[in-house]
């Protein structure tokens, strides 16, 4: 009886989302930045938090982490409003990032390790192992401001994952990272996922979202524009695309609209009622030499552009 009840509690705890946001509203003066936002992040999942610049992503994260106080609504981590007690189990990589510059790498990492509840010895052991992994073992006693930008990014990542956090919140994690550190970061996220950690990441890189995220939310003007698994969002926005390689002249047809056209390559956005086989047959019958024909759901890139329009184009150029 007792065992059954305990097992039930465990199941309940496992089912309960790690992050729970309901009717979140944030106002700065007369400016409403977030308006009635609700979403959950389940334990162990990787959650993509998407949106154009100024859509309220960073504000939501800061409110979730207690840096801002919400105007109204509920924002909870592990069933409670965030407090620094949870800091030991959190790995947070903010959008605005930096380190103490005048201290040695090891001193800075040890300090953050200690703040996250590790002993001095544990902090130093973790730091040295990490620095060894990222080829910075010989820089342990060097001042942070004497490192290159890329090396500082590696140290920053090390600080983020100290104490094996069960929740990683990464605000535009690859922003400003060179390809080597971007690769390192993605490896770290994969590692943490395998270890069962929950990851919430803000990003504009759709290939990262498609590769890493289980579920996503698209934020527009402080409201949710789409929310669910990647499949669900793709279905929500409907549409299928055919990636076509060909020779000859591409005919016009009511079954599709030409989205992108380059030399001997085109992407066709299919009409909702059109069947892929009918489209292929029509193309062949028109005398077109079809070299490749791949039908797929619409990419997140396309959906992003559809949702955010011109703003998205600017964002992606900036990135």
């Amino acid at each position, binding site marked *: 009886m007792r065992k059954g009840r305990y097992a039930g509690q465990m199941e309940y705890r496992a089912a309960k989302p790690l992050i729970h946001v309901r009717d979140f509203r944030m106002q*700065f*003066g007369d400016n409403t930045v977030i308006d009635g936002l609700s979403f959950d992040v389940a334990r162990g999942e990787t959650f993509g938090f998407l949106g154009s610049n100024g859509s309220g992503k960073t504000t939501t994260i800061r409110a979730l982490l*207690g840096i801002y*106080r919400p105007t109204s609504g509920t924002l909870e981590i592990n069933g409670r409003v965030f407090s*620094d007690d949870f800091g030991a189990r959190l790995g947070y990589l903010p959008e*605005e990032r930096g*380190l*103490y510059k005048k201290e040695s790498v090891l001193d800075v990492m040890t300090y953050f390790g200690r703040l*996250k*509840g590790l002993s001095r010895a544990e902090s130093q052991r973790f730091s040295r192992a990490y620095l060894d992994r990222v080829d910075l073992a010989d820089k342990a006693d060097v001042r942070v401001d004497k490192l290159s930008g890329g090396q500082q990014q590696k140290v920053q990542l090390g600080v983020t994952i100290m104490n094996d956090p069960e929740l990683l919140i990464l605000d535009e994690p690859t922003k400003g990272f060179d390809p080597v550190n971007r690769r390192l970061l993605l490896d770290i996220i994969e590692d943490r996922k395998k270890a069962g950690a929950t990851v919430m990441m803000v990003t504009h890189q759709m290939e990262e979202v498609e590769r890493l995220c289980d579920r996503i939310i698209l934020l527009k003007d402080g409201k949710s524009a789409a929310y669910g698994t990647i499949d669900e969002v793709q279905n929500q926005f409907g549409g299928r695309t055919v990636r076509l390689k060909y020779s000859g002249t591409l005919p016009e047809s009511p079954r599709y609209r030409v989205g992108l056209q380059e030399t001997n390559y085109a992407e066709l956005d299919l009409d909702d009622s059109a069947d892929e086989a009918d489209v292929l047959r029509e193309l062949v019958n028109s005398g077109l030499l079809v070299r490749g024909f791949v039908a797929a759901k619409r990419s997140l890139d396309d959906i992003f552009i559809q949702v955010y329009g011109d703003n998205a184009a600017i964002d992606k150029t900036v990135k």
Partner: protein
Amino acid sequence: MARHNLGTVVQFEFTRTIKKRRFWIATLAIPVLLAIVFGLVFASSSNTKSLTEAQKSDKLSFTYTDASALLDPAVARALGGEVEADPGTAVERVRAGTLNAYFSFPATLGKDPVKVYGADHGIFKNGSYEAVARQLVVLSAQEKVGSAELAAAVQGNFRTESETFKDGQVSGGLETVVPPLLFLVLFYVVIILLANQMLASTLEEKENRVTEMILTTLNPTTLVVGKVISLFLVGAVQAVVFAAPMVIGYVFFHDQLSMPNFDLSHLQFQFWPMLVGALLFIGGFILFTGVLVAIGAVMPTAKDASTVFAPVMIMMFIPFYIVTMVVSDPSNIIVQIFTFFPFSAPVTAMLRNGFGSLNAVSAAVVVAELFVFGLLALRLAVHLFRYGSIEYSRKLSLRTAFARKG
């Protein structure tokens, strides 16, 4: 967790400061400077001593004429003097270098000056002519009086010891004033040494973009309190380093450095003035620290913060413009305003406490006021740090900061 983190913050902040070469260069500069000054004083003192010894053995020779008839020829001879046989040519002989010195004592010493003529032996040695002439008159007068006590009385050369009473008890003199004023000295030393560091203490998190990572692992109150404690410890280290050469000089080279004698055993450490002094010091320290940290939290850079810093520091020195009034007329309205206005209160109240003009009620009000305003300032500093430090590159608007409180 909080207590553990407070220790971690204090240790990190303290260690990182005292590990810096810049800190030790700045801290050691003052004792090194003092050591150089002491060295010069020591060398000069040895030189003066040997010069004095040389002068003692090098007896001054002079001739004199005495129109006053006050001088004792025996005393004059003992000092190296002879009665001038040819007064008409004496000055010319001194000018020609054939006579070392000639003193002409007038008939009315009270009205006319003693004329002293001598060969130039340098500005230092030349002074000995007047000294010998004066000594000759004093010793001769004492001989005539025939009583050392009477001579001392005539010269006003005697001591007095006072004892006053208040409420049936012996009230103190200067020896009771000095001990409570030590807190005033300590207050100035601590604030002057640490003010810049207080101001910059939270700027570093902002300038280095560390704020968000800190705020998610640490309560901002813990961070600010930890920084204040570490600053206090740093100040203590500096005070010890600064004081070391003076203590060493006083204990081991007291005579060589011509240091004044302080008979510390006469100082009276009375309980209530010392307690009030300590409370005023702590309250004032909390108030100024809170205000300086709050300024640092609002401003984006150290340069911007320094413009607001000056008026706060001036407030600390302003009471010294009315120090005479504080001592002589403590009930004056200006003194009263300075006593209770928070920023001038610590210094004014500590002065009045030292001079015994701060009554118990006023002391209680000022102490309470300093603690209340000090803790409010610290609380404000924490709030502004929490919201101000997120505004990484711009000045925080106070309206925005309080609007964010939600």
